[in-house]
């Protein structure tokens, strides 16, 4: 249908103008001409210092969806291979990444059989020394988690985008970030973005953080599906002719495929694959090292994400602690509380693993009440907060919504004032 065509309502016979702005649709696939043009762009990209790309480079603002923000991050991330298995709402993001392959920004891209296959293939690619990316959500994440949980022990710095959408059953493809709780004990780094801007920034930084030699861990960048992935928001980004340096696999904490050590063999020296023959103490020490590496990532999270936490109104006696889309709702609650003359602060948690334990202890030390709003039933963030800070009777574990519900700011306000808002 052409833009502006007249449309007749068959029930009422009323004729109205079709406004193309009303249509809900994915961004159109690029035309062959556009792809050719973009290929020139990919070839013209120049490698810049990560600090420049993430901190210093001038940025321009675009109004795009979260999935498009992820695409723009990957465009600038010098990714070698992306492997996809579509699951809603992943399909949108990996579809976008697929366009990047067509445009020449990614060297290889394919659709795998299913999530276990994807996560296994990502492990193989990462172990071979290339920069590898995939994305998933909800039940797809849980299906792949056996492989995902082996990445940190294998010291594989791959990047996993997680567009949270609840784990079945019953089937739901709506916002609910319960799947983050499944990632918490895998050993990898878990970042939780608030909005489209975070999805862009965290995704670029993820590669560099995970590939630091003293870290060498996979990084999951989670956002709340639909609120972030399908909705548009303003995103500030540097020029698209800039990209990160390639992965430098010879400066990481383990050898890649063990070809450098005679006798040459395809698999890496990995006592984890031969656990009968290693000491129990080695396995214990290995696990300690994975979580120590998480801790070392804090330095780089602070540098490239502008701090592992963000604190708004730090002296307030009532502090909200939130991550993901709950931060946006909390920001609005803080504003509404201010209008009512209430002194309320906000702590945004950017990284769930490593968890900002000391930072949170210090930022909440003065607080009399700590409210933890969440988009899930289990309250995983409230549990983290309660197990981290002292005097944890101050923690109010809620409000919580789940199963695809949105979180009206009134819910947070009611928790703040202690009664119904009318």
């Amino acid at each position, binding site marked *: 249908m052409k833009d502006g065509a007249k449309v007749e309502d068959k029930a009422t016979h009323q004729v109205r103008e079709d406004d193309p702005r009303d249509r809900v649709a994915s961004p159109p696939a690029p035309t062959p001409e556009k792809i050719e043009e973009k290929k020139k762009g990919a070839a013209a990209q120049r490698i810049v210092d990560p600090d420049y790309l993430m901190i210093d480079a001038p940025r321009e603002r675009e109004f795009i969806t979260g999935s498009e923000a992820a695409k723009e991050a990957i465009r600038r991330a010098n990714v070698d291979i992306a492997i996809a298995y579509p699951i809603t709402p992943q399909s949108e993001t990996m579809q976008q990444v697929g366009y990047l392959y067509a445009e020449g920004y990614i060297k290889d891209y394919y659709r795998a059989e299913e999530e276990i296959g994807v996560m296994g293939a990502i492990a193989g690619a990462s172990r071979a020394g290339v920069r590898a990316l995939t994305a998933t959500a909800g039940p797809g994440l849980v299906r792949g988690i056996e492989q995902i949980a082996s990445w940190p022990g294998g*010291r594989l710095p791959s990047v996993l985008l997680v567009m949270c959408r609840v784990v079945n059953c019953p089937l739901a493809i709506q916002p609910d970030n319960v799947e983050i709780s499944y990632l918490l004990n895998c050993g990898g780094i878990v970042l939780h973005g608030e909005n489209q801007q975070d999805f862009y920034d965290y995704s670029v930084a993820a590669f560099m953080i995970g590939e*630091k*030699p*003293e870290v*060498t861990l996979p990084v999951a960048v989670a956002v709340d599906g639909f609120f972030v992935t399908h909705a548009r928001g303003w995103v500030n980004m540097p020029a698209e002719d800039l990209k990160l340096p390639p992965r430098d696999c010879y*400066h*990481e*904490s*383990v*050898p890649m495929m*063990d070809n*450098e*050590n*005679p006798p040459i063999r395809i698999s890496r*020296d*990995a*006592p984890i694959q*031969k656990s009968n*023959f*290693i*000491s129990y*103490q*080695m396995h*214990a*020490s*290995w696990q*300690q*090292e994975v*979580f*120590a*590496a998480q*801790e*070392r990532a804090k*330095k780089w999270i602070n540098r490239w994400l502008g701090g592992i936490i963000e604190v708004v109104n730090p002296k307030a006696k009532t502090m909200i602690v939130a991550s993901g889309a709950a931060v946006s709702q909390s920001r609005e609650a803080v504003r509404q509380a201010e209008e009512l003359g209430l002194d309320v602060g906000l702590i945004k948690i950017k990284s769930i693993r490593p968890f900002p334990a000391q930072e949170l202890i210090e930022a909440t030390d003065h607080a009399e009440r700590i409210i933890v709003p969440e988009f899930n039933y289990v309250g995983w963030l409230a549990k983290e907060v309660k197990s981290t800070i002292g005097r944890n009777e101050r923690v109010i574990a809620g409000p919580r919504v789940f199963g695809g519900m949105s979180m009206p700011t009134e819910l947070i306000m009611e928790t703040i004032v202690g009664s119904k808002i009318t």
Partner: protein
Amino acid sequence: MGNVNATPYRVVPGPEGLLPPAATIMGVPLPEEGEGLVEGRITTEEEALEAAATAMLTRKNPTLFPGPMIIWGWNEHTREKAQPFFEVANEIPGVRIIPMPDYRPIYPKIDPEAVINPCHPNLTIWHNKIEACVLIGVHCHYANITLKMIRAGTNCYTIALCAEAGHEDAMASVPNFDAEKVVRFRDALIKVKKNGIKPLYEGTGIIPSGWAQIAKLKGEIPIKPREASIDGEARGAFSHELVTGLDETAE
């Protein structure tokens, strides 16, 4: 200095116990370029090198553990670093050189005079009664797990001269350790001796350790001796297909 010394936790020779914590988790930071780490405290690079030199000269059975990134000449960087490594060895009287050639588990048992293995590094430390050691050219992951296990069960002073970010789990560590810094470590050894540190094994050279080094010293072709455990009686009692090899024609 780039980092602060906030934690009371100290990284000192053990035995610290069954399972010491990772020093990072206890708040020990990594040094920045130009810095070093001594017993969990940020120092200057020079101070760290001198602490390492003093330990290697004054503690019993000092040993250098070169890893794959220094013993295999697979790139120019490796070869650059290997040359001054021997200059370091020559400045430590009575030093042994026991390689960590790779990270595979070695079975049925290791020869602790010939190699150190990250699966059970404490065996090499105990067997040779090593009280000071240097890890160099070992990939960070394997160095860290080795350092923790040594700290758990031995009284060895561990030194990690790391090509990357350094190691909190070592008693002394310097980051970004390239060939130039290997030379600086040699100079630190010379300096502390000049300043009055008397080497415990003064007048002794490099002590050959393991069958390969000993054979080479005798001018013989090194041939790995057969493991006692796979001979005779022990072969039937202990070994299995991993030792004997699979008989692919067996029914």
